[in-house]
């Protein structure tokens, strides 16, 4: 790859973020027309990535990047093959249409600029995710998509439902992201490589590694949450709280496919094992059935589409799990088809909602004359979704049936699941595309008419593309389907399916699907009532479970907080001093550093007397029953300390201590005249014993530590330095003073500052009086 190409790809990855940065200012200047300008960014990216289609379809892979944290061998790097280029084209291509659509959809919204900014940031994150080569790059972009998705779902943050949905999506996909990170680290340690391109070159090293199962389960944790597989599917329908451009872009065409992307990316190294071929179809198939059945229950256009998206993701996971050549080709075709038709249908749903004021399918009808363009786009998209011949969805469906077949019981079951799912999706797709437009005209909250070009451009282009890409299936297979399938399978394959129907098993199954779909479509009302009855009977789902878990978390953390931080000072003090005693005693015990038993110190009697007086003063403080005794005994111990300093060669300390103790006693006396000393200690005996034990242990611990310290050889280096240079350098004879005002002058300045701040704080405390007592229940003090 040329240096220029490197640069351009790097710029293409940065461009969405740059566009996001200017979006608010641009929107302030141009209002909704800023969309036309902002859409240039994804359009340029789309053009840039089309340049790779040629080389990639020839079987080349391109890598590039920069060293990010070389000491940890972490790079910012990208890797382009059929899979990532197809995803990049989908993201930038649909992104262009979505930016335009958002320009019309949120026209006049006060935060439209912010919305553009978020959606462009998402685009950059998603683009980075699918082209990422190094694991860390992948993880960072993966989490960025979760975060931008959170911002977009919660865009309308004044509604509680939006906030809940945003948080739910973040919690579920964020937890999945952690699982992914753990999985990638396991792969790193099992194979010794930390980039996709290198991992794909290791072939079956990972499959044979003892950590294979751990890696697989952790990766699946990430993929299943992101791609909304049962039982993590619940966040996706809730994410429909977001404005419709977000639903169309993130929650159908791109972000939710990140999990499928990851599975496809790792298929060559993780796939082709019994676990892979069991777990994936099991969860995918369940998701497919649950998704379609829940979709039947809905009347909201967006929710109907959301549940079919869940179902489609299940189908993709199931096909990826089956892993045969045909199944993977089917997954690839269906993924591309789904991005086009589902994106279009979401935009149609938003358009109908925008123009008529409702998206409840039971309150809509007869819009075909008012909104002919929208109707056309809807029918085109639904035809692809339903798998009608001549549309791209048809190719996907033929390939699905060809890939599953009836070879044994397991694939027969999967075929039946796919059949049921596809039939139901056919019905839902046409219900969304036809019900609002056909039949008698129904009065809607707003007088419906065709939307502006910004709104219908996207669905029309995507709908038409579903037809064109199938008619020219040779070209689309050569440029997109075959390279992508080859990348997923890890070997070169050619997709050949075309729109010309072949008589055979897949076609027969397609006919059955359509028949089933038409049947469900006709009976949709009854089906909806039946599903509603069943769901009411069950009455619990993972969505409710999420609330229960979140509430439980709040309760648990509340009680833990109450336990640890219960607002009782004595409790805190006890805990603190127990910790101090433990911190001193446990290491001494562990390392056997107990002090030696000292011999009886030989001291003159006056020193003993001073120490004794200090101890008496301490005892008197404890037993003081009135203020005078307390003040006097506090003074006794303070002055004894001053005497100790005096006797031990520290006259400066002694004078300061005398002064400070005198001042303390004076201030204490002033305050004590207002504040009574309780004559008795209120503590019950049990508490007293406990406190004595804590205080005694802690005091003994600190004393023992001091004794031990005095028993080791003394390092007098620093003291000698000050002694040597006090006169020579600083011209002072009193070494203590020289240290304070010269050698450590700034420390003394700090000390003065502390004294000043304390003085100011005291002044403020004395001067400032609240108008009302803080705690009115306690009355005036």
């Amino acid at each position, binding site marked *: 790859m040329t240096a220029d190409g490197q640069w351009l790809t790097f710029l293409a990855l940065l461009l969405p973020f740059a566009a996001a940065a200017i979006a608010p200012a641009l929107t302030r200047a141009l209002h909704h027309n800023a969309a036309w300008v902002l859409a240039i960014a994804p359009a340029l990216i789309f053009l840039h990535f089309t340049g790779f289609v040629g080389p990639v379809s020839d079987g080349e892979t391109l890598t590039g990047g920069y060293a990010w944290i070389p000491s940890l061998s972490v790079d910012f790097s990208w890797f382009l093959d059929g899979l990532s280029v197809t995803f990049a084209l989908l993201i930038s291509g649909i992104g262009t249409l979505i930016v335009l659509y958002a320009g019309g959809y949120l026209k006049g919204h006060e935060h439209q600029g912010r919305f553009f900014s978020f959606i462009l940031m998402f685009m950059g994150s998603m683009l980075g995710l699918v082209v990422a080569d190094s694991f860390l790059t992948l993880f960072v972009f993966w989490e960025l998509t979760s975060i931008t998705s959170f911002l977009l779902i919660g865009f309308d943050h004044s509604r509680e439902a939006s906030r809940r949905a945003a948080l739910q999506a973040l919690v579920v996909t964020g937890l999945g992201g952690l699982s992914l990170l753990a999985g990638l680290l396991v792969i790193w340690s099992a194979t010794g490589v930390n980039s996709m391109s290198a991992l794909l070159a290791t072939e079956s090293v990972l499959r044979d590694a003892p950590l294979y199962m751990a890696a697989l389960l952790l990766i699946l944790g990430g993929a299943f949450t992101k791609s909304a597989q049962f039982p993590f599917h619940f966040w996706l329908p809730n994410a429909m709280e977001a404005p419709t451009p977000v639903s169309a872009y993130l929650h159908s065409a791109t972000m939710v496919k990140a999990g499928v992307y990851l599975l496809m990316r790792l298929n060559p190294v993780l796939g082709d094992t019994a676990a892979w071929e069991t777990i994936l179809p099991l969860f995918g198939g369940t998701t497919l059935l649950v998704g379609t059945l829940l979709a039947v229950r809905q009347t909201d256009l967006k929710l109907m589409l959301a549940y079919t998206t869940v179902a489609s993701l299940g189908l993709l996971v199931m096909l990826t799990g089956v892993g045969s050549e045909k199944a993977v080709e089917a997954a690839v075709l269906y993924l591309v088809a789904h991005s086009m038709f589902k994106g279009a249908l979401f935009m149609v749903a938003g358009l109908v909602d925008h123009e008529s004021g409702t998206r409840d399918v039971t309150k809509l009808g007869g819009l075909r004359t008012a909104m002919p363009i929208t109707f056309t786009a809807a029918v085109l998209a639904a035809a692809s979704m339903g798998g009608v011949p001549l549309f791209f969805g048809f190719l996907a469906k033929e390939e699905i049936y060809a890939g599953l077949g009836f070879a044994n019981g397991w694939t027969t079951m999967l075929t039946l699941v796919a059949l049921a799912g596809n039939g139901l999706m056919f019905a839902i797709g046409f219900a969304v595309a036809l019900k609002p437009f056909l039949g008698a005209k129904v009065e809607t909250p707003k007088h419906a008419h065709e939307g502006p070009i910004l709104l219908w451009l996207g669905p029309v282009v995507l709908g038409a593309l579903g037809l064109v890409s199938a008619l020219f299936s040779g070209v689309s297979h050569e440029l997109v389907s075959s390279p992508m399938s080859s990348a997923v399978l890890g070997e070169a394959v050619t997709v050949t399916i075309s729109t010309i129907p072949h008589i055979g098993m897949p076609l027969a199954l397609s006919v059955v699907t359509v028949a089933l779909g038409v049947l469900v479509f006709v009976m949709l009302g009854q089906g909806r009532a039946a599903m509603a009855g069943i769901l009411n009977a069950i009455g619990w789902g993972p969505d409710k479970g999420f609330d229960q878990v979140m509430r439980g978390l709040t309760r648990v953390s509340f009680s833990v907080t109450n336990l640890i931080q219960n607002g009782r000072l004595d409790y805190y*003090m006890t805990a603190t001093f127990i910790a101090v005693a433990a911190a001193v005693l446990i290491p001494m015990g562990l390392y056997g550093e107990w002090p030696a038993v000292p011999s009886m110190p030989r001291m003159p009697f006056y020193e003993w007397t001073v120490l004794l007086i200090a101890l008496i003063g301490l005892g008197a403080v404890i037993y003081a029953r009135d203020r005078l005794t307390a003040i006097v005994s506090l003074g006794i111990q303070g002055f004894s300390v001053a005497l100790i300093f005096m006797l031990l060669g520290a006259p400066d300390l002694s004078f300061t201590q005398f002064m400070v103790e005198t001042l303390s006693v004076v201030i204490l006396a002033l305050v004590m005249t207002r504040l009574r000393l309780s004559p008795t200690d209120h503590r019950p005996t049990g508490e007293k014993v406990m406190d004595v034990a804590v205080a005694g242990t802690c005091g003994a611990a600190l*004393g023992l530590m001091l004794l031990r310290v005095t028993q080791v050889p003394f390092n007098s280096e620093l003291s000698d330095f000050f002694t040597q240079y006090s006169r020579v350098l600083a011209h002072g004879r009193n070494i203590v003073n020289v240290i*304070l005002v010269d050698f450590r002058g700034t420390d003394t300045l700090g000390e003065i500052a502390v*004294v000043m701040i304390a003085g100011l704080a005291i002044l403020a405390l004395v001067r400032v009086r609240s108008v009302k007592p803080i705690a009115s229940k306690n009355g005036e003090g």
Partner: protein
Amino acid sequence: MEAALAFVVSVFFAVAIYLMLSKHIIRILLGVSIFGNAVNLSIFTAGRLMREVPPIIPEALQTPDSAIANPLPQALVLTAIVISFSLFAFLLVLAFRAYQELGTDDTDGMRVAEPEGEPLPPLGY
């Protein structure tokens, strides 16, 4: 000598901590004051003790000609005395004002910042 002071220091600490574990704010303050002395004495003792020879260089000399008391812990303790006095004075006034405002000198009654029986935080979103 150090052993005797180590014993005295441990009694200082024990008494200070015992007073600080009380619920009465005035006793806690007495404890804080004694605690400061305990810390100062232990720093002083840790620097080793020397009787009656202050760290002062005689007029005629550039460096002391005989052993002197360790000046470094003295400098540290001098700073610490002043700081602990500032803290004590501040706490005293704070306690007094708290008593005036709240009408109690019992720490169990001083629950403005962490009220008793606080309700669960909102469980919504």
